[in-house]
């Protein structure tokens, strides 16, 4: 890894999901550097004004523990995701401005696999938090996420074999 601290690039969906259960700060506790691209900031804070995550993300950026970072090379944004938050998140990893992408939707995850990019999603962030003792009951937390309108219908599998 060298001297560069571990950096995660986060898409709108995990930010919104974590904010719904008031767990956005888990990102700061788990990962040394948390970055989002401008399109994700626009999706959550500007277009999502008054909705889940808008206030929490705006505050996190103001406090500086989430940094808004533009991909160094916009040509690295996959053509299939041009003009989207997911595309800019992937570009941040391709430009080596982040080590891991945190994305939920199927298209973004498939594209990460195709490009050989490390990625996890909201459920795995919560699993990581549980393994670090930051969440006491993973099943309960996943259930609460579901109740708050963030569908992870097969979350029981995430709890099985939890270490």
């Amino acid at each position, binding site marked *: *890894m060298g001297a560069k*601290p*571990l950096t995660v690039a986060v*898409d*709108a*969906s995990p930010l*919104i*999901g974590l904010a719904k259960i008031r767990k956005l700060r888990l990102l700061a506790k*788990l*990962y*040394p550097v948390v970055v989002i691209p401008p*399109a994700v900031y626009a*999706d*959550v804070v500007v*277009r*999502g004004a008054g*909705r*889940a*995550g*808008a206030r929490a993300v705006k505050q996190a950026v103001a406090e500086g523990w989430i940094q808004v970072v533009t991909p160094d090379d916009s040509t690295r944004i996959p*053509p299939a*995701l*041009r*003009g*989207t*938050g*997911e*595309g800019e998140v992937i570009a941040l990893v391709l430009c080596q401005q982040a*080590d*891991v992408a945190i994305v*939920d*939707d*199927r*298209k*973004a*995850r*498939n594209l990460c*696999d195709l490009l050989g990019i*490390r*990625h*996890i*999603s*909201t*459920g*795995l962030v919560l*699993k*990581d938090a549980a*393994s670090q003792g930051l969440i006491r009951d993973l099943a309960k937390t996943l259930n609460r996420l*579901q109740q708050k*309108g*963030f*569908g*992870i*219908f*097969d*979350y029981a*599998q*995430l709890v099985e074999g939890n270490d």
Partner: protein
Amino acid sequence: MEHTGSTQVITIRLELPASVPLSEQEAREILVLKLVEEGHLSQSEGAQLLGVSRAELIERMTQAKMAVARYTPEDLARETETLHWLQQQRAMSNRP
């Protein structure tokens, strides 16, 4: 949202029996949400097509019983591997 001029679009016309209790808007929404769930559209693209925010898209998918993040055994295996890598990096950087 800006798009490069190269983005091609197709237009779908769909004739449904009048007895189907859905407005055009509702039928359109079901299709777009399903395309997001299946990975043909990203969440951003789906939200743009429906003219809603990401937060609304997520809530509508959940209401329609569609997964915002689905976990197949393959997803779980791949992401657990990355999770272990992350945990390893963390352990290494915590070492004095």
